[in-house]
């Protein structure tokens, strides 16, 4: 593997060929915010929060640092004006889905939701709230598919109707063996929307539920309600 030299935020950095900009930056102690990235999983490029500006000759372009491979002589600006302006709007859009007051603070996550928003001076969103908690980052889906090789979780729907669902038939078999591990779908979730319990199995027993069940309905109160209704409280 060859080595390349690139400049990130004025710092000259040596990186291995094939590495992504994000990894190179992290190795040099430069922080780029991410939501859908996890080092154990394939890069996905969905949250777009890690977008940076790259300059090649006279041309500049915005790319996601988690999916753009390093190149020799590449100049990267992680907090250029264009980047910061866009990131702020992007976070505001995420905020419309992920209500800050309801956001669960996750100890194991490298930053808290509040800190991230405070960094960009955001307290509330100007947009119509569509509070589903789940921001569709796909970490749980990728974790289940790539690490567990179980595919209990998946996406259905297109556009604004997209959602994460579980397949109860599979969940019954897989979820009990998975629970309690150091990593799990509830552990990788940045929003805390996936509860770490057997709710899905209980739901399957109720026979009332469709084959695929949206994760977004699993807010804590809802689950207690559902568990009670199937007599498994």
């Amino acid at each position, binding site marked *: 593997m060859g080595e390349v030299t690139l400049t990130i935020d004025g710092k000259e950095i040596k990186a291995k060929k094939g590495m992504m900009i994000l990894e190179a930056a992290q190795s040099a102690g430069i922080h780029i915010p991410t939501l859908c990235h996890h080092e154990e999983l394939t890069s996905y490029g*969905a949250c777009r929060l890690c977008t940076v500006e790259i300059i090649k000759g006279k041309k500049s372009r915005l790319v996601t640092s988690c999916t753009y491979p390093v190149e020799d002589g590449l100049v990267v600006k992680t907090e250029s004006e264009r980047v910061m302006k*866009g990131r702020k709007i992007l976070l505001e*859009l995420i905020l419309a*889905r992920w209500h800050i007051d309801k956001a669960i603070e996750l100890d194991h996550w490298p930053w808290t939701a509040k800190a991230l928003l405070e960094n960009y001076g955001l307290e509330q969103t100007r947009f*119509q709230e569509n509070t589903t908690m789940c921001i*569709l980052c796909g970490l749980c889906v990728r974790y289940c598919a790539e690490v567990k090789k179980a595919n209990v979780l998946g996406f259905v729907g*297109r556009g*604004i109707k997209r959602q994460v669902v579980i397949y109860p038939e599979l969940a019954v078999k897989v979820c009990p063996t998975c629970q309690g591990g150091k990593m799990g779908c509830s552990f990788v979730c940045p929003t805390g929307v996936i509860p770490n319990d057997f709710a899905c199995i209980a739901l399957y027993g109720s026979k009332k539920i469709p084959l695929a069940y949206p994760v977004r309905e699993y807010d804590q109160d809802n689950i207690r309600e559902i568990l009670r209704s199937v007599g498994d409280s």
Partner: protein
Amino acid sequence: MPRLNSATDLKGLRRDLFTRRDPNKPCVTICSGTGCHAYGSEKVAEAFIREIQKNGLQGKVDIRRTGCHGFCEKGTIVIISPEEICYLRVKPDDVPEVVSTTLVGGKVLERLLFKDDDGRKIVHEGEIPFYKHQSRIVFGNNKLIDPKSIDDYIALGGYGALAKILFEMSPEQTLDEIKKSGLRGRGGGGFPTGTKWETTRNAPGEIKYVIVNCDEGDPGAYGDRSLMEGNPHSVLEGLIIGAYAIGSHQGFVYVRQEYPLAVENLSIALNQAREYGLLGENILGSGFDFDVKVHCGAGAFVSGESSALMTAIEGKVGEPRPKYIRTAVSGIWERPSNLNNVKTWATVPVIINKGADWFAGIGTKGSKGTMIFSLVGKVNNTGLVEVPMGITLRDIIYKIGGGIREGKKFKGVQTGGPSGGVIPESLIDTPVDFDELSELGSMMGSGGMIVMDEDTCMVDIARYFLNFLTEESCGKCIPCREGIFQMLQILNRICEGEGKEGDIDLLEEIAEMVKDFSLCALGATAPNPVLSTIKYFREEYEAHIKTKRCPAFTCKKLMSYYIDPKKCQACMICRKNCPVDAIGGGKGLVHIVDQVKCTKCGTCFEVCPARFGAVTRLSGVRVPKPVPAGTKMIRERGE
């Protein structure tokens, strides 16, 4: 069918087909493209078969059902050869007269001919203004070919370009020819085709793929469909030529399931080509192997995006993936994959046959050749038009399109489908090519061209396209999924009279971010309808927000129908036609619209006799207090 084992065999077959055909034998050509099919071309064809039998002409007259001729406004189109008499709007009931007058009597049936503005009748298709200003180098063969017959295609010189490159040119020479022609991708991006081919050719890896993108999904666009339905062999020939130049032995055609006729005609074409040895192993005895698989799409607009399309061919959900390494280098199963649009592939044989220099002689400096547009909307002659690059929008809309319907005023034209922008009247003299359109904030796209008149509300248009995109975004990345949704919410608010100061700035703010941050081209171009309408029609947005007025009287929440009591002649017409009984008054009494009951369907406005003009549309002003019920009408003087 005998297998063709050399270029000589192909030439022999063509000569054979030629001598077998009598150019003087009468032939009835019936357009059976999608537009004419909807008009009932199937019944017209049946009527011709019946009438020809009745008149004892069977065997003496040929009947050919072809793909789309383009002049969809006037379907069903029938052409009688060898005189090439063109009949328009032919109904099954007209057929007996056509047969007796023209086929038996040898005379022209005047009433079915095209009539120009001065009332002059035009006999031949090529002289009709709609066709006269076009140059149909790709699309023109549609009317001469039965798409289900490979012989029709070969008789016209089909697969000649393939034989030429296989036996007279090396793959490098073929590639150079396409590069020299200056051909750019007809699917929207306008990327130089030759450069793309070269990237795939030079990419490491033994196995390479070539792909036809027939996932046309823009509202109002049907050029790819009509080409695939009407002349599938031209697309196929282009694809084989491309495969030869690139060094690929496997091709894919991605075609929408919703295009059943395209799927059918394509499948027939592939089988016929295989039987003749034009596809499969050892094509024409040249030693070159290539075959094609058809992949039917499941109806997602986003699958037209190249990386999403390739993901779909792999058997996964059609979602785009990051393309920082080009699909030409790492596409289907991470192998070099060259994808081009239907129109691009169909142009390739034309370039090989007539030469790169000839092709480069057509068009503008940066955009060569012709472009096929789906001309639709409020224009007189809707249809598919093929024009040289660089023609002005004015020429397309007025010379070919015949101007705006009902003599109304032209307001703007939307090019490039939902990802394109609206170009206003002030820029109507813009020459149409890739670079000019993107400079104006629109794009060439897949060739959709929607003409709008003065009754079109630009805020509503932006809302329409964003609504489409909210549904059709794959939902993977946040800017596109959430950004388009929130822009739509704002536009909905504005159209419903709840727009706020600052909404326009907020729209622009989101739009810029969505453009910069989205994963694929769908997101990157999705804000175009919003940005272009704000750029050229800002005052319309302001009218909606500040004075709650819709200048085009389109946004129902912002307008009312009102009957002027001074003009109402109590004729009862509007009252009888109102579907919700919202009009009060009676015989001799002034009619009054009940604003609560009224659903704003506009029927009263349409039916009120022009000489009265009593029903008016109001927007941005308060509806005057109704006159007391039972007020007698005032008869206009002189009545």
